[in-house]
């Protein structure tokens, strides 16, 4: 079974703090994703990475950065946390695409971040 783990289930930080959210997958997937989930908005893509040290902005990258130094680990960084970044953050990794791919994304349990 694919396992995607996230470093914290719940996190409380103060405005202006630097926040690191860690995600690790054990299936050697090349593609990894960070989403935020807000009621009524579904999941919105923040950043994704298709290989080590490679990253692409998603739909809402402002206020976030990412790091992918190893294939299994994808980190989301909030340089200076703000209250409007209070949300549920979900990490995912994905099976290959292409002709034999299944395109399935596997999700971690999520980190509920509260910024006060």
């Amino acid at each position, binding site marked *: 079974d694919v396992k*995607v783990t996230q470093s914290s289930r719940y996190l409380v930080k103060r405005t202006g703090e630097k926040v690191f959210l860690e995600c690790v997958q054990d299936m050697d997937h090349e*593609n990894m*994703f960070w989403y935020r989930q807000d009621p*009524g*908005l*579904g*999941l*919105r*893509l923040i950043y*994704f990475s*298709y290989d080590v040290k490679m990253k*692409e902005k*998603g739909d809402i990258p402002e206020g976030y950065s990412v790091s992918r130094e190893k294939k299994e680990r994808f980190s989301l960084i909030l340089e200076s946390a703000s209250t409007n970044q209070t949300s549920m953050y*979900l990490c*995912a990794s*994905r099976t290959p*695409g292409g002709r034999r791919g*299944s*395109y*399935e*994304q*596997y*999700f*971690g*349990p*999520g980190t509920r971040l509260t910024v006060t």
Partner: protein
Amino acid sequence: AQSVTQLDSQVPVFEEAPVELRCNYSSSVSVYLFWYVQYPNQGLQLLLKYLSGSTLVKGINGFEAEFNKSQTSFHLRKPSVHISDTAEYFCAVTRPVGYNKLIFGAGTRLAVHP
């Protein structure tokens, strides 16, 4: 660009009744379609997917969905729901080419009552 509309934000239903969760998508190119389920305080889990072939797709936990290209819909159904099906359900779409970003709908909260 693709987009997904889940037509109901909440669906209340009694146990053992049938349920349909509606999903419409828009895209100028062919797409792959997915339904994910999120139980309380958990991440998302894949229920089923349509990539090609038969338009009726069967998934886990007795769910199925039908891809209707002419109506651009991918509705999720279950003939008899259980209390344990109470969860949030997300429809998602992606293109078969490129980096394959998943575009999610806003979600439908299914509440099964005894």
